[in-house]
């Protein structure tokens, strides 16, 4: 059982890292701010989601697991709002 949990953790965290690295590559390679914003909020948050998923089996108890899920939801929600606000700043900057 513990071996299965560990395998799941390694798999999910690795997947999360892949998305996270993809997001970073997007940030450095995309041509304009808006697409960089996209790479940042979508890919990085997805990466974090998979990392959280992977860490869930390692939790000591239900409360910790709930906290992890809650953290992820929080980052999602805040990231979505933050992306909207940054996009607004971008739009305002483009209008001279």
């Amino acid at each position, binding site marked *: 059982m513990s071996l299965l949990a560990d395998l799941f953790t390694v798999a999910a965290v690795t997947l999360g890292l892949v998305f996270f690295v993809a997001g970073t590559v997007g940030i450095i390679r995309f041509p304009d701010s808006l697409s960089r914003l996209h790479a940042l909020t979508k890919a990085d948050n997805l990466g974090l989601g998979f990392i959280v998923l992977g860490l869930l089996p390692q939790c000591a108890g239900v409360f910790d697991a709930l906290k992890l899920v809650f953290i992820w939801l929080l980052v999602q*929600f805040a990231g979505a*709002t933050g992306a*909207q606000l940054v996009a607004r700043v971008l739009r305002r900057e483009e209008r001279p």
Partner: protein
Amino acid sequence: MTETAFFDALLVVTMIGLAIWMIVVRDVFAAIVGFMAFGLLLSLGWLRIEAPDVGLTEIAVGGGATGVMLLRARGLARAGDAMNSVPSVPFRILVGVLAGAVALFLGALVVFPPAVAPTLAPLAAEHLASTGVGNPITAVLMAYRAFDTFLETVVVLLALIGVWSLTPDGAWGARPRVASADVPAPLLLLAQWLVPLGIVIGIYITWVGADEPGGKFQGATILAAMWMLVMMAGLRPAPALSSRRLRIALVVGPAIFIAIGVSGFHFAGAFLAYPDGLAKPLILAIEAGLLISIAAMLGMLLAGPPLEGDRP
């Protein structure tokens, strides 16, 4: 354990790079963003050296409160045209020399540490049980050195009075304006959902501080940030500085502290001494009062002084 060595080395290099960038970059806004980023990285550093309470405070203060405070100060400075005054060269040299001296001193301490590190840690750990709390940081802050904590709280209050003194004469006692003219709809949604959760988290962090990393200061900073969010989203206006409820909230923490401290003379022989067995409930009472007061102080520090005299 060389995997953690990679992490630590990268962290240090990134922090130093960021610090240099912060000083060199010309745009003040960018420098403030860098400062906030530096605070978040530094908090990871605190975690790595097994100081989670400091890390938590670094996040709350360096990552959240100070960054926002610098932003609002910049906004005020721009309004008053203070941004055009550049410090003179001798002054900048003096600051550079002082900063360099402090850095060298700290570096020397790390490279040539004293043979026997002066520490009271074993003694403090030995008597932890009698303080009624399990977290040694909280024990130091609230039991062994409660007097220092009390003075620090008063210092924050004095700082707030200092910020209030920036109010132009006609605006004394008015409300600071925090919300921008048009509030983006996503912000409104976030504020309505996040603030209640944030308040729960703030109280949770305070409560858990008795035995785990946490405590009233970090909890108060979270509460202040949530209050600031409410004000920024325009859900509620900032309180008028002359408001009685605000002033009571600001004073209740230090007042409880003083009351318990003075009664310590009577019941246990010294200022802020707790009678045996009553340590935990007294600490809780002080923490509850301080939570409200520090949250109010930090929130008002972030809100800043009112600029127009729209008296309530």
